[in-house]
């Protein structure tokens, strides 16, 4: 179903779907975040669990769905993780991932070799309680969302604390279980303030600039935003997680566009279906956009039934060619949009 607001202004348009559900190997299992290397490869971070630990891995591939392998493992040992949350790559092509259960950061090279692990649980300076989003500044400093402490902490790549800002709350400059974070070309910082249903913009030093959005399901309103990214023109893209959609705002925070998702069959999905002709035939005969009267207004329900919709969009990223990547976690895929 397409709404008027989805069509009146187009900043993004659907390009393709990437990936397929797979407990291990080629494919994704609850992908939670993606980072893009200089060579164009996507490092898609999965979030498994003890009931299926194989999902806890990076899957490495690219826009054309070339597959380069996997690495990472579930556990508490060296280089292992429990609750993978976000990933970022610095200019030296070091790959960082946050683990909000073990309260630590894992650093690897792009071959997956472990370089470092740092982070200490707590509320003191430099300590972490549920590290969530992570972003790299132009000077290769790391911004880590210290979720349960309601603050942002800035670290060197090897984990030395530089500074921090923010506190728990709902006032200006305060944060409630924040999740995603990004930096724009001017160095300003944007935080997906998950528990306050808004995006908060800060200066590079952590000074409060503005709040964008409020609670709700309307245009420009949010329900638990998970991720934010800003393009070179200043447009702001928000993973409006519990509303199961992506919204586009202009540089002043005004609403531009929203989409519930437009997925089709990816290359890997098509290969699976080609090899399973009975399932392909049954799928071809099914209506994957059924008209259902739901007993709740929770968009989670529609997304559970209508396959093309986002279902748990946890992370957004821009690739080197200017595509917007939407990590569509419960559907185990990326939905890719062109930006125009």
């Amino acid at each position: 179903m397409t709404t008027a607001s989805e069509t009146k202004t187009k900043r993004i348009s659907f390009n393709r779907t990437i990936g397929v559900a797979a407990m291990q190997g080629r494919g994704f299992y609850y992908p939670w975040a993606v980072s893009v290397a200089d060579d164009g490869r996507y490092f898609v971070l999965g979030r498994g669990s003890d009931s299926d630990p194989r999902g806890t891995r990076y899957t490495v591939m690219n826009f054309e769905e070339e597959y380069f392998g996997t690495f990472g493992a579930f556990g508490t040992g060296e280089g292992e993780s429990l609750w993978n949350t976000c990933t970022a790559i610095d200019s030296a092509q070091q790959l960082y991932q946050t683990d909000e259960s073990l309260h630590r950061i894992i650093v690897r090279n792009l071959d997956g070799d472990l370089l470092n692990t740092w982070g200490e649980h707590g509320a003191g300076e430099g300590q972490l309680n549920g590290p969530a989003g992570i972003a790299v500044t132009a000077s290769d400093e790391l911004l880590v969302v210290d979720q349960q402490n309601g603050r942002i902490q800035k670290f060197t790549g090897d984990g030395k604390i530089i500074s921090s800002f923010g506190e728990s709350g709902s006032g200006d400059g305060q944060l409630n279980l924040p999740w995603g974070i990004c930096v724009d070309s001017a160095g300003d910082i944007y935080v997906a303030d998950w528990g306050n249903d808004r995006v908060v913009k800060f200066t590079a030093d952590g000074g409060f600039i503005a709040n964008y959005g409020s609670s709700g399901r309307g245009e420009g309103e949010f329900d638990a935003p998970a991720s934010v990214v800003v393009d070179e023109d200043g447009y702001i893209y928000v993973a409006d997680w519990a509303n199961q959609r992506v919204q586009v705002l202009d540089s002043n925070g005004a609403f531009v566009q929203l989409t519930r998702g437009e997925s089709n069959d990816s290359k890997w999905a098509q290969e699976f279906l080609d090899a399973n002709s009975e399932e392909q035939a049954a799928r071809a005969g099914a209506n994957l956009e059924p008209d259902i009267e739901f007993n709740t207004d929770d968009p989670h329900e529609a997304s559970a039934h209508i396959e093309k919709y986002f279902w748990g969009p946890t992370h957004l990223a821009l690739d080197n060619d200017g595509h917007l990547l939407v990590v569509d976690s419960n559907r185990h895929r990326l939905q890719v949009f062109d930006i125009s």
Partner: protein
Amino acid sequence: MTTTMTSEKALMAHLMRRAGFGASSEELDRLVEQGYDETVDQLLDIEQPNRMSDNIIRRYHSEYSGMMGNLSAGANWMYRMVSTDAPLREKLNLMWHGMYATGYSKLANGKVLHDQIRMFERHGMGSFKDLLIEISKDPAMIVWLDNVENHKGSINENYGRELLELFSLGVGNYTEHDVKEAARAFTGWTIGNTEYMTMKSARDSVWPYGRLSFHFEYKADDHDDSEKEFLGRKGNFNGEDIVDIICEQPATAEFLSRHIYSFFVADEPPVPEWPYKPPRDPEAIAALSNIYFESNYSIKAMLNYLFKSEFFKSDTARFQRIKGPAELVASVLRLTEEFEKPDISMNPMSQQAQFMGQHLLSPPSVEGWHWGTEWIDSGALVERVNFASEHFGNLDAPGVETLVNRILDAGDDIAPEAVIDRTLDELAITEISDNSREALIDFATRQSESAPADQTRRERVVNILKLAGATPEFQRA
């Protein structure tokens, strides 16, 4: 037998064990002040429960959001049981899940089972007629009992049979002809995209993009709209008409009353034995059956009557039920307060109920579980005792810390008997056998006399808590 509380508090503790998952001593004091009938009304009337929100659960537990696997929906439900302020709703959901047992093995889709439990939450305290219609439309049930294969001119009797045998009338109150006619009436009651959904279930396929939820679909062209004869009535019946006739039957009232009595008052024999074993309290069943008809099939009215009845309040009804595994796990975790926020350990925690014999959303058959003493075999008993003991022994758990602090509030120099009485009070064990009490006192005495020098008083209290959790009284409701 020793009584450890005032009669009002003991009665309130009984209510909260049966209509909920127990309560702390502090909460019981507050509820006693509020009044018994008022507490029953509150348990029945909460429309918008406060509990851990779906957003919080989904943010941290990827699998409790997408629900592809066999554990996730049950573990998600455990969060609700542990955190809700409307425990009767979740307790009742457990009863309906046992009565309308539907399992993962055939569906390979946790989300549709989760949806069924949420349906129970919406209709489980309303009209029994509405509940029977909703369970007949429930997509998980439709696949579980093969109504997707029930077609005009080619019936599949499975759902029609279980509707009569296990869901409403009970064996002996219908004929084979009635089963066939009921099946004919439910032809055309299916799910959308039947072929694709059932194929994905049969193949346990998560490809290409995870599970898809099911939705009910009525296919008029596959419905047998010719005349049927059901329980002596003739007409051009559809499924709703069959439910109407079922609900008018005294046998349905008795069957439902016996289920409710068995779950909330005292264990009855397994359902297959009901045709030849009379209820343990026929007068109570008759009274509940009357309420069923007087209230136009209102489940809430039946529960209201039950909780305020003398047969429920009676001293002889207390501690007569064995806590079910999920109920035991939830009752411990509510006291220990280990899940005030999501934690990665919820999966193994939820699995503890499975090790004790109740894998939520994976019942052994459509008959569900056999309740009562059948929960207890030697293996399950060890699991139950170990679970309670382990968690009451976790001083890092905020609820355990609170319990210990309250027990120690009595001061530095209290006799072992006083420590035991205070411990029993905090765990709301309102009555205890002389054997159990003496064993606890003996343990506390020996511990105080021969404790290692480096053992703190807190550790000694924790040891007593661990042992109290293993008593038969705590394992019962």
